[in-house]
């Protein structure tokens, strides 16, 4: 499968995401420059974490106007798979691809730590490799991850099972303490009504290698790959072209296309 990682000015998890998709998951991956008007034939678009435009004004508020976002909207509108991680989630909210908004974390501090999230709905393109109620250990790193939606929207989201991940403790229990940023209904990840656009605050790419302490994030990428393979009808037998990338300690120049 071919993944595209969008590079906005100020993105800083772009290479991390690229690294995991290409070197850990073995998928063909390209960077997509924010000024481009072409998604270069990718099967899936990932909006990575970071501080697009410095997160000035509001997180994700300026990035939504980038030329590439017009293409991403079209792509999403026609059923293309879009994953927004952290800042990517914020951009999806600001761009109206997902409902709701982000407020500052309840303690008004940036938070970088491992958290636990529970899979609420595993019948999505982003969570099918896990089971319902499964608890994942994945880090967060954000200032504005306190999800907000008006009450009627929240009940609609719940009714449609659009809440895919919720913050919980290590045993899968919800609590105010486990909901570190104060999100409404402990929402950590949210999918659109059509089921092809997911935003999540935790960083699965930071939890995809054993040496970094957790591989739970791979469940999300695995699910996406499975979904795309099924959709393309390649089935189980014809495995996707495995990439044998040479992994280097230094990233290739991001933005050199």
């Amino acid at each position, binding site marked *: 499968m071919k993944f595209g990682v969008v590079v906005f000015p100020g993105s800083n998890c772009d290479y991390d995401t690229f690294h995991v998709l290409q070197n850990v998951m073995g998928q063909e991956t390209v960077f997509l420059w924010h000024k481009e008007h072409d998604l270069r034939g990718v099967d899936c678009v990932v909006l990575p974490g970071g501080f697009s435009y410095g997160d000035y*004004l*509001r997180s994700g*508020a300026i990035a939504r106007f980038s030329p590439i976002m017009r293409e991403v909207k079209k792509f999403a509108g026609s059923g293309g798979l879009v994953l927004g991680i952290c800042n990517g989630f914020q951009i999806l909210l600001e761009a109206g691809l997902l409902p709701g*908004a982000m*407020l*500052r974390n309840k303690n008004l501090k940036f938070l970088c730590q491992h958290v636990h999230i529970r899979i609420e709905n595993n019948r999505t393109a982003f969570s099918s490799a896990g089971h319902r109620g499964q608890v994942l250990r994945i880090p967060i790193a954000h200032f504005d991850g306190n999800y907000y*939606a*008006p009450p009627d929207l929240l009940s609609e989201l719940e009714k449609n099972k659009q809440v895919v991940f919720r913050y919980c403790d290590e045993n899968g229990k919800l609590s105010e303490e486990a909901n570190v940023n104060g999100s409404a209904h402990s929402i950590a990840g949210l999918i659109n009504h059509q089921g092809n656009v997911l935003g999540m605050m935790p960083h699965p790419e930071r939890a995809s290698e054993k040496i970094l302490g957790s591989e739970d994030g791979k469940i999300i990428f695995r699910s996406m790959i499975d979904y795309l393979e099924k959709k393309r009808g390649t089935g189980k037998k014809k495995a996707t072209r495995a990439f044998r990338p040479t992994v280097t300690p230094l990233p290739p120049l991001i933005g050199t296309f």
Partner: protein
Amino acid sequence: MKVRILVSLKESVLDPQGQTVRNALHTLGYHQVKDVRQGKVFEIELEGLDRAEAEKVIPEIADRVLANPIIEKFSWEILEA
């Protein structure tokens, strides 16, 4: 033309920043402070448009860019023509 746009959280949205400021003021002994709401102010210098045009453009900018209508409201005024 000089314009001021104020953006703040809607009443229905909790404002922990404002509350923290209020608590800090209380700690310092300013108990007269009953409530604080914190928001953003944009002072914008506009050029080459008349008042009527400005009155169209300003709320447009505020609504499209400066405020997120899900959580924020805005107000504006022209400071200097």
